[in-house]
């Protein structure tokens, strides 16, 4: 692997990191499998692409964040006020966003930012990597501080034990609004960065976003197990970067790029099922010993 490829993998890994921190909020903190992210990732890419073409790349990133937040709020509205199941709410949001994203992209499946000004266009290669890393670390720091505030603590408790939270004067619906808004805002930001980095916004780029994030979270968790929040956040970031390296390696070994999504899904299945399989094997062994 050349240094060039390693650096590319690192950059993408850091962007996966932002994405995974977003999904960490919905999936781990709130305990909601939120499929909206598949749509909000593309939403971020689309908004950032279009605004960059107008010559305002930084505004594009912030616009993407706000767009993602709104998507999250709508999803929370479906779940809490209209009582639609979380999974279905997410799928509905994802499908609606598909059409909306195409509209933002001007009814074409993709948008080239070639020649447009992006936040990366005036930086040299190493500075680009540094910028992405800094953005990731700043987001992680803010997330850490946020989750340790009164509000953040309520948010975590809401995912951990909703019955208790309602009995302790916290409005769980409000928590879901806030949590899903933050989660999708971050995912959308990752999409926005990705579009500007790759000089390309694509209406199908968000497919499998949730799986990418889950794989990152699970890889991180397998490596570093802790209930300490700080370490959990670090493990998510490490998991995301590592996951991107695994994908890059797979590509280097000649895996077809179109097979990557399948590979990701298999990875998630394997990571989740390993403990179950281990337990099965142990039980089998125990029975064997019992018979002997």
């Amino acid at each position, binding site marked *: 692997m050349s240094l060039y490829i390693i650096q590319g993998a690192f950059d993408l890994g850091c962007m996966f990191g932002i994405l995974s921190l977003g999904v960490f909020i919905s999936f781990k903190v709130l305990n909601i499998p939120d499929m909206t992210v598949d749509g909000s990732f593309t939403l971020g890419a689309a908004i950032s692409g279009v605004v960059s073409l107008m010559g305002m790349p930084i505004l594009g990133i912030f616009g993407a964040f706000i767009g993602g937040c709104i998507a999250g709020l709508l999803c929370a509205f479906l779940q809490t006020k209209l009582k639609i199941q979380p999974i279905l709410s997410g799928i509905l949001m994802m499908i609606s966003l598909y059409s909306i994203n195409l509209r933002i992209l001007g009814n074409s499946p993709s948008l080239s930012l070639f020649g447009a000004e992006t936040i990366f266009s005036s930086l040299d290669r190493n500075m680009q990597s540094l910028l992405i890393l800094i953005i990731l670390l700043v987001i992680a720091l803010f997330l850490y501080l946020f989750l340790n505030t*009164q*509000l953040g*603590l*309520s948010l975590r*408790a809401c995912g*951990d*034990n909703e019955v208790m939270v309602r009995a*302790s004067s916290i*409005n769980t619906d409000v928590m879901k609004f806030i949590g899903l808004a933050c989660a999708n805002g971050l995912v959308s930001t990752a999409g926005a960065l990705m579009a500007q980095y790759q000089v390309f916004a694509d209406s199908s780029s968000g497919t499998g976003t949730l799986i990418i994030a889950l794989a990152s979270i699970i890889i991180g968790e397998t490596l570093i197990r802790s*209930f300490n929040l700080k370490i959990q956040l670090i493990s998510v970031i490490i998991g995301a970067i590592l996951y991107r390296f695994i994908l890059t390696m797979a590509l280097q070994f000649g895996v077809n790029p179109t097979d990557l999504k399948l590979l990701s899904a298999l990875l998630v299945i394997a990571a989740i099922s390993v403990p179950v399989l281990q337990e099965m094997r142990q039980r089998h062994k125990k029975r064997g010993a019992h018979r002997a």
Partner: protein
Amino acid sequence: MLELKDVSLIFNASTVHEKKALDHFSLTIEDGDFITIIGSNGAGKSTLLNAIAGTLEIDEGSIFMDQKDITFMPEHKRANFIGRLFQDPLKGTAPHMSVEENLGLAFCRGKKYNPLSKAIRKKDRPLFKEVLKPLELGLEERLNTQVGLLSGGQRQALTLCMATIVTPKLLLLDEHTAALDAKTSEQVMNITQKIVETHHITTLMITHNIALALKYGNKTLVMNDGKISFMLEGEERKKMSVEKLIQLYSQKTDQMFADRALL
């Protein structure tokens, strides 16, 4: 302080499974009362607490708290002045958070803090230790332990601390010791008694154990079919024994106490 006026709550209304869990139920609770509630399964005891806490919205009647109508106040707002414990010790605490974080969460109840202020401040820690100490479970030395690693009894005791760290106007206990072993159950009951007495908290406690119902509190409410069967207080209650109560119950309701095995 709490007044229920002609409250009805019907499950599956206008179907064959219609069940009047509370049937024109009226009750006035005085400040400082510790009322124990007994009655067979399906008598409406838990429904009563759920209606007071706001988990279930009542179909008829009204509920007043200190002369204020709270009939349609949402559950999380009522939680500002109502503390609550469930039978399941796992329900009252967040397992993946530390003892300190759980207490911190309970501590902000009913207070107007800036939501973005730090959740656990250093100056709160001595107070957390102080409320945990009387439990005599050594939890004050384990502030950073994950709550999921504690035993059921420890978790229930912690829940009790959380429900009372900001003194509530009303404490609702729904068989909060029923899932614990005999020794732990007694321990948690003693802690309950201690906390309720120290802070003069008005309390409603459901129990299946008639002896407990007579031992603790100042009044005993016997429920049947969503109604008050009879209420014991004062001298009559002091003289009451478990056997006599069962006899009285059978006379009043023409049925045997369904939970005799539990005595």
